[in-house]
């Protein structure tokens, strides 16, 4: 990074740390922080979308759809999440390969599960054989996002469904009295107002989502936990920057990072709650109205 870093063995004190903390492996570590933020940025909308679909299914007037929504929400909420995080990527991967196998190699006669192996024909492999390394990383990252979206989608579905029910019934009835259809009433009255009721639940789920991101490590991705372990471990004099076991300090840094993330999102959600309460028929909204008057 810096010009004086060319020979680490002669460095002392501050210079040593400046060079050490900007070495190539440390840059990987910093990129892994970005991976966490990307995961949050991708998963949050995905989970919100899944949750919205789930909540709509729970509200539907078509019985099988309601049943499907209930099964989805209750199964995911009733089973320990760690199990889900490890189960979904493998099960989904094998399921996709199996479907591709059925489609592309109809005359393959050997069984797919042979003892302890899961064998599909080469055309059905995911990602395709001979793909570059980044495809494999992207594939496992995509699977992780799907697992997160499924689990958190069920939580969100439950919260959003409750929020939709919490919008005062009289308002929906008024909308219907004005001649709006069910769909129009939902779009114009329920949808804009439900967020203030959903916010406490969503904020809680967001905090849990933040704290779930280190589980990426379990899916074999090179995330911050992986790099903290790698970089913190004892380095002998064979390495350019020898140091004793510093894992504790690396994990302390991660701990502080997560504390910062949860603290800042608490702030943001408090602010958002105040904004959304404007003009609402709730206690918080009433307080804002009085303060403004």
């Amino acid at each position, binding site marked *: 990074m810096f010009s004086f870093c060319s020979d680490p063995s002669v460095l002392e004190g501050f210079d040593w740390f400046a060079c050490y903390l900007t070495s190539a492996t440390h840059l990987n570590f910093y990129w892994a922080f970005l991976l966490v933020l990307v995961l949050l940025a991708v998963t949050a909308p995905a989970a919100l979308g899944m949750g919205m679909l789930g909540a709509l299914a729970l509200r539907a007037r078509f019985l099988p759809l309601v049943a499907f929504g209930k099964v989805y929400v209750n199964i995911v909420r009733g089973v320990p999440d*760690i*199990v889900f995080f490890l189960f979904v990527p493998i099960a989904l991967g094998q399921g996709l390969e199996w479907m591709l196998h059925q489609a592309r190699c109809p005359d393959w006669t050997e069984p797919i599960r042979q003892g302890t192996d899961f064998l599909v024909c080469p055309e059905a492999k995911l990602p395709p054989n001979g793909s570059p390394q980044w495809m494999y990383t992207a594939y496992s990252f995509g699977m992780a996002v799907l697992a997160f979206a499924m689990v958190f989608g069920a939580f969100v579905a439950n919260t959003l469904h409750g929020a939709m029910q919490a919008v005062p019934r009289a308002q929906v009835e008024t909308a219907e009295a004005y001649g709006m259809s069910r769909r129009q009433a939902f779009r114009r009255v329920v949808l804009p107002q439900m967020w203030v009721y959903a916010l406490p639940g969503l904020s809680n789920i967001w905090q849990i989502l933040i704290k779930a991101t280190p589980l990426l490590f379990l899916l074999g991705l090179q995330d911050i936990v992986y790099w903290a372990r790698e970089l913190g471990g004892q380095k002998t004099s064979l390495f350019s920057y020898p140091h004793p076991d510093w894992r504790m300090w690396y994990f302390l840094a991660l701990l502080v990072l997560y*504390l910062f993330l949860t603290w800042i999102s608490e702030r943001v959600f408090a602010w958002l709650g105040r904004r959304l309460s404007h003009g609402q028929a709730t206690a918080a909204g009433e307080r804002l109205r009085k303060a403004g008057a």
Partner: protein
Amino acid sequence: MRTCWESFEAYGLRALGRDYGERLLPRGLDITFCDQVFLIGSGLMWNIYFAGLAIAIGFGLAVGVAMARFSQNPWLSRPASGFIFVFRGSPLFIQFFFFYAAFVLLPRSGIDIPLGFVTLTVDTSALTTAQVGGLFVLVLNTTAYSAELFHGALQSIPKGDLEAADAYGMQGWTKFRRVIFPNMLRLSWPSYTNEAIFLTHSTTLVFLSAFPARQQVGEAFYYARYFVDQTFNPFVAYPLVAAYFVALTLLIVAGYGLVGRRLNRHLPQARRPRFRFRPQYIR
């Protein structure tokens, strides 16, 4: 192939150590369905051990921390809030890693604490095992979460009850024991049930993270992962472990329900706080 009974004999107590049953775990094609049922089941005893002890120790600490947080004295309430913030605001997964890395750095021979006339040697090597070190982290974690619940309950103790206690001339310890503590417990009991469930589920993280499973002694989910690695088939071991946990959850709900009934026995039905299952496991 082993019969089911042979699997039970070989692996029913395997989680206690390699002297109890087969030394080696079943591998590859040798794995039968019964092996998975019994080995995962034997791992469950560690989940119960971790959860039971952590809840029992954490309960007492949490009451103390909650009272400290509720107190008017900033020298008590500030550190208590800080403790709660740190342990609730960071992932348990990272806490395990951090504490394990810290415990490894402790001198292996133990720490000498000179007490003047006698020197006390604290044995620190046990802290790097999951059974002690992992439990330590779980205790701190559940203390923080429960203290937050208890603090919320302390804030909503009915004013009338406190005034009645004052009117009877109760003070200090008597008032705490007779009025504050039972009310706090009664009000927080539904959410405390959820906390016990989450804690039980998060015991699956102990061997997933930093703490090593010596002699392949682990909890239920450790064995489930072992089987999935061996057979590459997630459709047996994971549903099994999920089923075990659902059963454990139902037991906890039933047990806590009994205590909750007793705590609220003086109240009319309509005023009793209800338990609602709100599963959000990750912590």
